[in-house]
């Protein structure tokens, strides 16, 4: 059975003279034992191997994204230009329509809007005449003197007569309210 230090020791007894003569030669070595042990100890104190992935992750990511950008740039520069194509489409002209006679709508005005015949001329009575005058010319056309005061049977009071008539009423203070 082999061991780490003696990988193969079973066939040494079966060696020929040539093999024994060659095997007696000692390989020259310039290996520095202490240096190897020092570097091995130095490596054992180094940070764990997991850091390498993080160190290489971002450069790899940046490189891959740069490749993507480069590829898209190439695709963009080589994209075929779409030419504008003008297509004329024959559209049938619509036939001229026959002139249509305008439809005249005759609508009878409502009775309420028709002028009243009695407004065309003043009526026979004074009330009719006054109403006709107001409708026709407005309130401004009314005479300043009331119609009742113009009755021929009564004379209008002067200012002095009116004052004398009303003095008793003016002098009476009246009851408290």
């Amino acid at each position: 059975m082999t061991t780490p230090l003696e990988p193969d020791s079973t066939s040494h007894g079966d060696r020929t003279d040539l093999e024994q003569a060659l095997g007696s030669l000692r390989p020259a070595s310039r290996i520095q034992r202490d240096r190897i042990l020092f570097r091995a100890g130095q490596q054992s104190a180094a940070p764990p191997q997991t850091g390498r992935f993080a160190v290489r992750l971002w450069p790899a990511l940046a490189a891959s994204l740069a490749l993507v950008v480069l590829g898209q740039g190439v695709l963009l520069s080589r994209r075929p230009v779409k030419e504008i194509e003008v297509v004329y489409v024959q559209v049938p002209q619509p036939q001229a329509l026959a002139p249509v006679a305008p439809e005249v709508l005759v609508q009878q005005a409502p009775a309420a809007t028709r002028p009243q015949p009695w407004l065309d001329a003043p009526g026979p009575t004074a009330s009719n005449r006054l109403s006709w005058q107001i409708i026709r010319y407005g309130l401004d056309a009314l005479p300043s003197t009331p119609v009742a005061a113009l009755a021929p049977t009564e004379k209008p009071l002067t200012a002095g007569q009116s004052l004398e008539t009303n003095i008793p009423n003016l002098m009476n203070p009246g009851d408290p309210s």
Partner: protein
Amino acid sequence: MDPDLLGRLIDRHAPALELFARQWCDTAEDVVQEAFVKLAGQHPLPDQPAAWLFRAVRNGAINAATASRRRRRYETQAAAIVAVWFKPDPAPEIEPDQAQAALAALPLEQREVIVAHLWGGLTFQQIAELVGSSSSSIHRRYQAGLATLRTQLGVQVS
């Protein structure tokens, strides 16, 4: 990782791993050092640390060789690095220089199997898993490489 275990692994396998890495690149010690540092950061520890180390060194050496070729392409003078593969031995059965030259002349597929088995101590099954081949194929490569070495070094072997 236990420093004592790491120290013992270095003492036991570092020279063979360095020789193994030299089959591909000139910066073998750096590759081996990185492999041991990586092993120290493994949690949990591999079931077969030696096989794991040889695999890590093989991958690191191939990468280092590729980078070295790319770097030398722009250099006016490439440094002629002739590394010594084996330590000198006062009473050798095989001359180290001769062994290095003969070994270097072998195809890489045979060299890596011989180094991993003879000096690394890996089984043929472990080497087969290391290089991605079958155990029988690895054994054939090993035997073919030894036959070539025997032809080239036969006079030196007593």
